[in-house]
């Protein structure tokens, strides 16, 4: 299992860089992970999405898809793609330290 150093902590990640143990994640790590994804600063709106994604994962055991995010996070699909141009569900999951959501829609 690959690992990476974040904020002085060794965290377990999968081949694509998604957290294997979401409990290892901290909010400060999110800032560092966002930079790796080309997002220089996390805005309050980014945080709305990240917290929503974490909560969904804790409740359901999986992160939301883009459609679910657009319907329930309070951030529209259009805004989601502005916040996370490389794929909102995928990048938000990576930055929020949860596994990649699986879903086709």
């Amino acid at each position, binding site marked *: 299992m690959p690992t990476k150093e974040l904020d002085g902590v060794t965290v377990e990640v999968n081949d*694509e860089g998604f957290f294997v143990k979401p409990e290892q994640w901290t909010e400060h790590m999110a800032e560092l992970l966002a930079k790796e994804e080309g997002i220089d600063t996390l805005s309050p709106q980014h945080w709305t999405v990240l917290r929503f994604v974490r909560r969904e994962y804790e409740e359901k055991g999986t992160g939301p*898809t*883009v*459609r*679910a995010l*657009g319907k329930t996070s309070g951030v*529209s*699909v*259009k805004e989601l*793609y502005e916040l996370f*141009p*490389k*794929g*909102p*569900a*995928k*990048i938000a999951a990576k930055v929020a330290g949860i596994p990649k959501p699986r879903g*086709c*829609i």
Partner: protein
Amino acid sequence: MGDRIEKVSIIVSKGSLDGIYPGLIMANGARAEGMEANLFFTFFGLDAIHKKRHEHIKISTVGNPGLHVPTLVGGLPGMSALATHFMEKKMDSLDIPSIPEFLEMIHDTGAGMYACLASVDLFGFTKDDFIEQVDDIITVGEFYDLAAGGQIIFT
């Protein structure tokens, strides 16, 4: 992951429910993975973006062996509407959006949507016949220009 696909251009050429959804799902999925995506609607696929028709897309119950209904039964009046109704109910329960809603969403993801000029001329349509999310009516040559550097998928 050096072989990552960065861009896809998907051609939708059929006007049935099962002819349209796969292309839409693939375009939406491509954007969700951070790829660039274009949709090109041609021939009967134009019904997917036709304002008056795209709410009434049906499953074909004749000549569709996958449905496992004898052709003569499938040809009875109302069979296509019935099959479509059941499929739509099932899709709704799985939170799969309707075609009009899905197209709006795909447009919001930043994917491009284009109608094929030859088919538009053939059916006598104009830009006003199409939903506002359609970016343009383009030639096949312009489609290849748009698709340059990416993968082309025909459905």
